[in-house]
């Protein structure tokens, strides 16, 4: 079956297209123990989601607010599709608010109870008021959360499931847990009412209000100095002697005094070393013992005291960059506002919030420290903090500076031959230095191809010799990589790579020779094929039984004419050669025919006239003679001799053999030089 190229190509492409998915499947992976998250389906488990929220409500109902916060911190870990995110985000936010409110209510009610215990009715009243507002707000939030559970059920598709399904049960569990929180809120409400009852009961109990005043002897004082405070405690205008008046500074008790017979009290307090410009003071009376049955606590109006202190200034001088393993100088000065050096001040120096040294300022307010940067420090930006502790009337101060830790870059100079002939010894030499000078004892790892050598630098220099063996590949780049690991931590490591052109003359020669051989054989093969194609293609029909090629006729060089082998000759001569080989013909006949064959082949190549199988050699002479020019006569004579050798019953004589060889050479020379 004959197949055209077009059809064959079409079938081939069709088959390739058919097979291509198969090849893809073959190259594809087996089932891996992971999913592609890009194509993984989104899945929400309503049961676990609602159980999670139920757990949160249960924490609230048990007043375990910290437990709630711990579990609620995982809220971001739930993965919700975009359609559910809005609903659940608002639900979570309201739930968090409910928890905060419940915790606040708990705290407010506890405080109220404590204030009532101290007969501080007005403060208790204020606290109870705040609690009532928070309880009301929380009740609203819990109702909203309860209503939202219905929407959640709808969105998660729970309401369409059977009543006894796990998701329906989980939804019911969530709603029940909200109810337990509401019950807890009711408990708080009852406690609130109890406290309110106590509050009103106290006021209806015949207790009387008290009043306490506070004054200071100065309005401005330095830190550490004593300030006198005094005032008077009364109840309905009557003095209350022998009672304890407590002085509060910014909410903390700092002094107390006992009222005299006039209800007056006075004492001193030391202005604390807080180094703030103003403090607020109160006088507080809390009825104690039997007084608690008769009097209500009271607190004075606030009194403000302006505080004086001196500021401290600090200056520090550090380099912009430090190096691991080297010292990092820190120098500075501590002065007062007016520039007076401050001696003996305690100074703490921190790097990245870790104390590195505590020291004191010198007589000139100066201080200095040489910090040894650890060898394994991470390079990059670091923070230096310096704190000057307060001392006496001098406030403390601090300063923060940023510096970087880096490593000195290395400079590497290399020396190696850019081109290497194999096999050879290849030496790499180099020098390693940095801004600090030449590096000693650095580890240099040198790799050429698959061979690695490790050497140490001596005064920055290193050298390594590689024995590169003969390679089958003629030429190419070999990777030369060099890594320098310095011995000192303040130096950075260095890695460089370069290409070395390597070539193997032996391989080049071998491959070139082989290539030349291949080319030569290929040319020969192509020429033979072309010749046989010419002889078999009827390009131009000449006289009967001959073919005249239209190829340009160029006389071949004699050296191009191969030895006669009979392989592609026309039949008569070929048959004779067969006969020669099997010994049917005499040696004289063989020699004459060999001479003819050589000349005949030359004529064919030169004239382009090819002998057809049914052509006699005489007919061939007739047809080719027009193109023989100077070779016509010798070829005619040679043809006659060949005819006689082929067809005569008498063997040719030695003279004929000699003549035939002479004619053959003459023809060859005629074609070569244009004349015989």
């Amino acid at each position: 079956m004959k197949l055209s190229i077009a059809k064959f190509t079409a079938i081939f492409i069709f088959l390739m297209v058919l097979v291509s998915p198969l090849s893809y499947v073959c190259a594809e992976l087996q089932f891996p123990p992971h999913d592609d998250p890009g194509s993984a389906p989104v899945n929400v488990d309503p049961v676990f989601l609602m159980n999670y929220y139920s757990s949160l409500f249960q924490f609230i109902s048990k007043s375990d607010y910290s437990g709630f916060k711990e579990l609620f911190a995982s809220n971001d870990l739930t993965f919700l599709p975009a359609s559910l995110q809005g609903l659940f985000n608002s639900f979570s936010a309201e739930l968090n608010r409910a928890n905060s409110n419940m915790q606040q209510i708990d705290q407010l009610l506890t405080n109220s109870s404590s204030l009532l215990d101290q007969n501080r009715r007005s403060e208790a009243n204020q606290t109870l008021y705040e609690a009532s507002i928070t309880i009301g707000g929380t009740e609203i939030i819990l109702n909203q959360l309860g209503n939202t559970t219905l929407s959640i059920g709808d969105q998660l598709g729970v309401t369409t499931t059977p009543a006894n399904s796990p998701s329906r049960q989980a939804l019911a569990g969530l709603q029940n847990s909200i109810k337990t929180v509401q019950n807890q809120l009711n408990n708080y409400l009852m406690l609130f009412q109890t406290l309110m009852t106590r509050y009103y009961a106290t006021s209806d109990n015949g207790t009387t209000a008290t009043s306490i005043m506070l004054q200071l002897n100065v309005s401005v004082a330095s830190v550490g100095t004593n300030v006198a405070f005094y005032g008077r405690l009364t109840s309905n205008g009557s003095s209350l002697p022998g009672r304890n008046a407590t002085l509060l500074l910014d909410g903390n008790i700092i002094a107390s005094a006992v009222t005299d017979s006039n209800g007056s009290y006075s004492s001193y307090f030391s202005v604390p070393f807080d180094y703030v410009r103003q403090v607020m003071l109160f006088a507080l009376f809390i009825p104690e013992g039997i007084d608690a049955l008769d009097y209500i606590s009271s607190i004075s109006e606030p009194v403000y005291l302006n505080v004086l202190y001196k500021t401290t200034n600090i200056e520090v001088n550090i380099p912009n960059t430090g190096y691991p393993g080297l010292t990092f100088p820190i120098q500075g000065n501590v002065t007062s506002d007016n520039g007076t050096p401050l001696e003996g001040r305690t100074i703490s120096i921190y790097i990245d919030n870790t104390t590195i040294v505590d020291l004191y300022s010198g007589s000139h307010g100066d201080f200095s420290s040489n910090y040894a940067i650890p060898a394994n420090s991470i390079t990059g930006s670091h923070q230096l903090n310096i704190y000057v502790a307060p001392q006496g009337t001098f406030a403390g101060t601090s300063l923060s500076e940023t510096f970087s830790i880096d490593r000195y870059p290395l400079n590497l100079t290399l020396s190696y031959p850019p081109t290497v002939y194999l096999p050879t010894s290849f030496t790499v030499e180099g020098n390693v230095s940095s801004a600090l000078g030449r590096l000693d004892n650095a580890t240099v790892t040198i790799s050429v191809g698959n061979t690695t050598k490790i050497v140490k630098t001596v005064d920055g220099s290193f050298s390594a010799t590689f024995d590169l063996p003969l390679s089958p590949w003629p030429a190419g780049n070999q990777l030369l990589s060099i890594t320098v690991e310095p011995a000192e931590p303040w130096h950075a490591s260095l890695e460089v790579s370069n290409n070395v052109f390597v070539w193997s003359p032996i391989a080049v020669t071998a491959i070139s020779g082989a290539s030349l051989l291949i080319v030569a054989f290929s040319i020969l093969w192509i020429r033979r094929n072309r010749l046989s194609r010419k002889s078999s293609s009827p390009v131009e029909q000449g006289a009967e039984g001959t073919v005249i090629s239209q190829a340009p006729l160029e006389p071949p060089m004699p050296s191009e004419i191969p030895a006669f082998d009979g392989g592609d000759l026309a039949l008569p001569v070929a048959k004779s050669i067969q006969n020669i080989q099997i010994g049917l013909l005499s040696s004289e006949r063989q020699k004459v025919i060999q001479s003819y064959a050589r000349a005949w082949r030359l004529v064919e190549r030169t004239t382009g006239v090819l002998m057809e199988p049914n052509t006699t050699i005489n007919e061939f002479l007739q047809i080719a003679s027009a193109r023989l020019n100077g070779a016509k006569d010798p070829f005619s004579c040679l043809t006659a001799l060949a005819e006689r050798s082929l067809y005569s019953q008498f063997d040719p004589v030695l003279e004929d053999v000699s003549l035939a060889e002479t004619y053959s050479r003459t023809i060859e020379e005629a074609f070569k030089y244009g004349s015989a």
Partner: protein
Amino acid sequence: MEARKLLPALTAITIVALLVLIWFFPPTGDFRAGNPFWNGYSQFSSSFNASALSSMNGLPANSSGAILVEVPYAPFTSGDLSKIRQFVAGGGTLVLMDDYGYGNQILEYFRLDVSFSGVPLIDPLFHYKNDFFPRISDFASLLNLTSTAYFAMDRGTTLLTNDSSGVLAWSSSFSFLSQDGSSVKSADDTLGPFPVAYYTRIDKGMIIAVADPSIVINSMIGVDSNYAFINNVINLNGNHVAMYFDQSHLPVGTLDNAKQTLDIAYSVASSPFGAAAILVALLAVSTLPLWRKKNSVSAGAPNPKPRNREDEDHDKSKGEMNANIP
């Protein structure tokens, strides 16, 4: 061109094209350092500048401060295990990331009180995308992760250990081990929390077991705090100086097989013997037509089977001429 010549030519072209494609197409195998697709480790290895090892022989002699990342999906030889022991004893850190592979072989070799359960971990509540991507947020303070950090697993498993002091991360209390691999909790499935990362010190080195190698595949390393988690895990024993990633125990796909075969062929061809063999083969093939022609002439026998009608006619006319020759 005749079909009989076109067919071998096209076949040869196709084979060469396929070989070129296999050579240059990136590997698609799971966890491969050169695999840039969703299931590869290319981002992980480039982020940490990991050197891929094709065999355990590539481990450095000085392992101090070095990290070896192992995804054990193929059994280990005693030689491999010995090399790992040397690596750890020399101060290296072995990060063993496994779920259903041969990680327990290493853990047993070191006689550690920890093993991979080999049962899928499911978290129906705290997860990424779906139940098979559990999110882990309970970390040991040693890991130095922020309180809001969490990472996502991808069809991972858990660890079994009695040494809770070595646990670095726990799954949530809502997670469970699915004995049948499904996302639906059955009565046999035990509830969490379960350890999913563990460390222990051995000599100067450290072994860290993570119950899912997929947390750092290209499609997962950017999810949640996965990168931060693996970064802190890797630097648990101090900042690492070098990282090695063993690829000799990874699952091998068809393409990987083909690439390995090509690699072997390339290395054989690169050897002097291989190069010489190629040279001889080329010479033999190029001179084959000449040999064939010479042989047929020296034998003196005509072609016994005419190839086509033209050849038959030619031979026939030759026969007619033979009759004229005495």
